[in-house]
């Protein structure tokens, strides 16, 4: 066993309403890969944020290279040799690869920056890692996988002793993952301490596993068979949909009362498919049929008129008007039904809002509460209410539980199941494998803008889905 380089002991952290970390211990040794796994929201990222000083801990100690430390920001941690390779990449797309790697510590010749030398040094780093990237290329022109390699190179150039990978595989294809694992093995051989955060079990049995002691992982029971009758009518049919580079020849059918899961890696084109279907982005070609009739959808307005509601993955930007109250948000999509003369009929608006607050069990002191003050889960319910008020029969949930705490998650799942049982049809885009397997009746897998598989839930396994998601 390698020498212990980093110890976190009894780390405790609470946010208002959530006990995020309950006395968690973590020990990182030189020359070992430590997998940190658990459900989204289990506290993995929180723990790492406590380590690098983005959050302050409530209790506990961090010992690094024999000394107790407390970092105040990621920069301090980085200077000490602890570097995080983030899932969401922190890159400046307008600068070149080498300029990104050496930002903040440029080589200089007098007053001037020595770009030639930076390119050489970057090349050396890449050679050391055995990857082939042109250091003079603009960062924005690289694929996500290559950008991640650049982040790793950057971490190594900081003489990192501990490197934390935060769900690195989420956006990578199978070949890129292989390349990444090779690099990680090399780093291990160089006696670095490595923490690998993931929620894919398959990846994590590599060295040793740290169980998150959080104790608030919800128990997942995958569906074993489709809940939809085999003769359920087709409510939505999409044929040969093309839109830009992210949606290529996508066809599928959605049955009444069905939850159709869309799985795939980040950037597989799932959201783009939904947005093109919803009319939010222009489509190049393709036909859409609703209840057997061909419809023309050129804008979200058309889609809503045909009973399609879209719940965006980015609620704050696209889903709700945060500065308005629940009632105002609920009637937003069909305000014209709630006016009397030129004024809004406040009474009628209040009635319908209250009805859906009760039905969806939205936790709020009152319907005049500003949406910004609600939790993520309850905000999501307000968006659902908006589309139900509008009488939408087809609901597109894009990452329905992103940023929602674990308790509220199961409520959202419950709600979706209820809606499906009532005959609403649901398209659910999700990057979480357990969510896909638990909720879907049928699963469509996408990769690089194409539909690569359509799997009935009875035959679906994690391996099958991952394979289809990385098909080139």
């Amino acid at each position, binding site marked *: 066993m390698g020498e212990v380089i980093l110890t976190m002991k009894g780390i405790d952290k609470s946010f208002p309403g959530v006990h995020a970390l309950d006395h968690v211990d973590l020990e990182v040794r030189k020359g070992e890969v430590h997998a940190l796994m658990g459900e989204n929201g289990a506290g993995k990222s929180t723990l790492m944020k406590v380590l690098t000083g983005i959050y302050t801990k409530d209790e506990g100690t961090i010992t690094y290279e024999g000394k107790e430390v407390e970092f105040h920001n990621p*920069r301090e941690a980085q200077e000490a040799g602890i570097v995080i390779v983030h899932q969401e990449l*922190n890159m*400046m*797309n*307008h600068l070149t690869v080498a300029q990104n790697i050496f930002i903040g*510590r*440029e080589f200089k010749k007098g007053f001037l*920056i020595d770009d030639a030398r930076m390119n050489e040094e970057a090349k050396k780093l890449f050679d050391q890692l055995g990857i082939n990237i042109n250091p003079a290329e603009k960062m*924005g*022109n690289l694929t996500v996988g290559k950008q991640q390699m650049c982040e790793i190179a950057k971490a190594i150039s900081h003489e990192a002793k501990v490197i934390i990978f935060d769900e690195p595989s989420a956006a990578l294809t199978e070949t890129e993952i292989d390349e990444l694992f090779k690099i990680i093995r090399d780093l291990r051989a160089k006696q670095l301490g490595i923490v690998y955060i993931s929620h894919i079990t398959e990846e994590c049995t590599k060295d040793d596993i740290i169980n998150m002691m959080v104790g608030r992982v919800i128990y997942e029971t995958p569906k074993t068979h489709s809940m939809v009758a085999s003769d359920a009518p087709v409510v939505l049919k999409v044929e040969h949909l093309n839109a830009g580079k992210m949606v290529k020849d996508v066809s599928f059918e959605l049955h009444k009362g069905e939850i159709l899961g869309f799985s795939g890696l980040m950037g597989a084109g799932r959201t783009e498919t939904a947005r093109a279907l919803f009319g939010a982005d222009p489509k190049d070609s393709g036909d859409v049929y609703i209840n057997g009739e061909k419809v023309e959808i050129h804008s979200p307005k058309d889609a809503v008129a045909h009973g399609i509601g879209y719940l965006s993955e980015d609620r704050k930007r696209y889903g709700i008007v945060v500065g308005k109250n629940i009632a105002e948000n609920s009637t937003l999509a069909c305000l014209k039904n709630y006016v009397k003369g030129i004024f809004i009929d406040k009474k009628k608006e209040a009635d319908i809002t209250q009805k859906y607050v009760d039905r969806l069990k939205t936790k709020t002191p009152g319907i005049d509460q500003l949406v910004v003050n609600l939790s993520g889960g309850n905000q999501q319910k307000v968006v659902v209410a908006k589309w139900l008020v509008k009488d939408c029969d087809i609901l597109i949930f894009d990452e329905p539980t992103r940023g929602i705490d674990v308790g509220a998650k199961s409520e959202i799942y419950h709600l979706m199941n209820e809606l499906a049982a009532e005959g609403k049809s649901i398209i659910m885009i999700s990057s979480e494998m357990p969510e896909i397997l638990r909720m879907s009746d049928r699963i469509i897998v996408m990769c690089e803008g194409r539909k690569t598989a359509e799997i009935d839930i009875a035959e679906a396994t994690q391996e099958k889905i991952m394979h289809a998601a990385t098909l080139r």
Partner: protein
Amino acid sequence: MEKTGKKGNAFTNNPIVRAIGVQRIVVVLAVILLAVFFCLMSPAFRQYSTLVSILDYSYYITFMAIGVTFCLISGGNDLSVGTGMICYALAGGYLVQQLNAPVWVGMIVTILLGLCFGVLNGVMVSIMNLPPFIATLCSMLITRGLGSIITGGLAVSWPSRSSEGGWFRSLFKIIDKGTLIPVGFGIVIIAVIVMTIVLNRTKIGRYIIAIGSNKEAARLSGVNVVKHQMMAYIISGFFAGLAGIAYAATFSSSVAPGTGAGLELDAIGAAIIGGTSMTGGSGSIIGTLLGVFVMSLLKTGLPYIGLQANWQQIITGLVLIAAIYIDVLKNKRAARK
């Protein structure tokens, strides 16, 4: 621009075209076309003196535009350069005209005042975190009012060519026995070269690009975001001061309060025509210079074909809409890639 990607036609894939940048070639063509057009339409335009007056127009716009380019690249904007330039020139000129200060003192005060307002804008944007558009809109109002207050609402004349201290006009244009020599163009070229190096080869420029590209990433990489964002506005203030001197020296015999409003759009327009992105992260000083020529050709040329000031404003507005729309399309395409 350079980032046309791997797809494209034979023209955009040509290595020479890629090195120079498609947009810059288009702007150069636009400058040539405009010049040819005006020459064909108006015999009076085909004169050496017209070329000199186009250059005279270009100096102060160029200086303002260089400064604004830095603000735009940092992801911000500076609306105060137009009224600021007039305010600084009024203050400097007032010292010379009313208080009999030497011309060089007036010039230094003009630039120092520009730097002060640059610092003010920088503090508002980087420390107080005000939106750049609003912050510099406020300093636009302040400089406009301040200029009038300093001179008591009267116009100020910097020394004329023949009087004592008139030498400063020769910095931009030498009149030798009736022959006009536009030496100011040399100053402009030097400024463009120096600022191109500052933008591309020094830490200040590199960090300003980084901040405009992804501010949070720059911060996490240990870049002093506050300091370098402020630098963009200080550079802009300094160049607004230089523009004030150029304006007083070449463009107008006297500087009148309340005249600067709207001139900032010439500068911002020039930068955008030259390929600087409204959303930050990319842009070039040479592109800006080319954009300035488009703007000053329009300003000088349109009267020759009988279109007076009101029409100029309409056409300038339309050209700006086109330039900004091109920028929007470029960003959209980059996002879809």
